[in-house]
């Protein structure tokens, strides 16, 4: 890309001094547009950005590209890779995917306008990271294939079996929801704050079982092992759910002001 119209992709904001090494590209790697990731400083905070082409990242192009799953996946992974690399140097405030500015000056203006909030967020997030916990309803106990009852015949046996199956599925689901609530309550106690996402559809989650909890927890780094151990322990104690743990994540879920529980210390 040479002299076509440019715009600026914003990844994250970090504290001054926690930004890029002198030659950032070598450490951060390639960004969403295949270019070098660089920094803009203002008001004591640093924005991590990349120059990208209007042809791919301008407003019209973005609207179109966001509907293209391959593009969306590639871009989401590249966005995440840069943010994750930055998170190794210190706290980061990640930006939502596809935050695009017309140039460096508007980015610097934004930093100046929001410097107070950004600095507050950076200090709140220092030494903490995000963990994801998903709970799936455990498979209902399989009903035995009916011993054939000659008195009622196969039709009635089928209906009875079907009813039993539906009941056990409903019960399993209710137990799983209760289990998920207990898991969430316990994990919330080990975390600084928590956020609930809508459960993922079974097809998308790659799991046949319904998801009953899709939560993110902000956990102090020194409690990360304790948190993971708690997830394992809960797995043993709540047979109605299967749990999955992901992380550590950069604190995507704890910078937007929509966390569901109040900050605890």
């Amino acid at each position, binding site marked *: 890309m040479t002299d076509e119209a440019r715009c600026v992709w914003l990844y994250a904001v970090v504290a001054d001094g926690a930004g890029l090494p002198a030659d950032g590209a070598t450490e951060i790697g390639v960004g969403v547009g295949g270019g070098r990731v660089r920094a803009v400083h203002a008001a004591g905070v640093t924005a991590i950005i990349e120059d990208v082409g209007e042809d791919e990242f301008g407003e019209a192009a973005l609207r179109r590209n966001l509907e293209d799953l391959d593009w969306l996946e590639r871009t989401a992974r590249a966005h*995440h890779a840069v943010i994750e690399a930055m998170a190794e140097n210190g706290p980061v405030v990640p930006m939502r995917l596809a935050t695009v500015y017309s140039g460096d000056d508007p980015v610097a203006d934004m930093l100046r306008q929001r410097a107070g909030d950004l600095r507050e967020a950076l200090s709140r997030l220092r030494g903490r990271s995000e963990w994801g916990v998903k709970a799936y309803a455990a498979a209902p106990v399989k009903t035995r294939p009916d011993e054939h009852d000659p008195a009622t015949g196969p039709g009635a046996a089928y209906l009875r079996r079907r009813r039993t199956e539906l009941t056990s599925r409903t019960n399993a689901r209710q137990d799983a929801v209760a289990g998920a609530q207990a898991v969430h309550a316990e994990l919330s106690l080990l975390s600084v704050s928590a956020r609930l996402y809508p459960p993922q559809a079974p097809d998308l989650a790659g799991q046949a079982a319904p998801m009953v909890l899709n939560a993110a927890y902000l956990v102090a780094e020194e409690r990360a092992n304790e948190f993971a151990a708690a997830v394992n322990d809960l797995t043993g104690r709540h047979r109605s759910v299967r749990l999955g743990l992901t992380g550590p994540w950069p604190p995507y879920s704890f910078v937007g002001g929509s966390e569901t529980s109040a900050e605890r210390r």
Partner: protein
Amino acid sequence: MTELSPVVADQRIALVDLLDRVLAGGVVIVGDVTLSIADVDLVTVSLRALVTAVSALAGDADER
């Protein structure tokens, strides 16, 4: 060191987990950006893109 397996699953991040976060998390800026994803219908972006792709891959998914 705590034993993290078996709850820690595969190493490559699942796209759905990533999209939860990058499309619904992160700081949202409106106003001075050329486009913020907040301007775009999120349901359209994440669900239509994903559902289309998944059903294309998996054929007709079983209904519930």
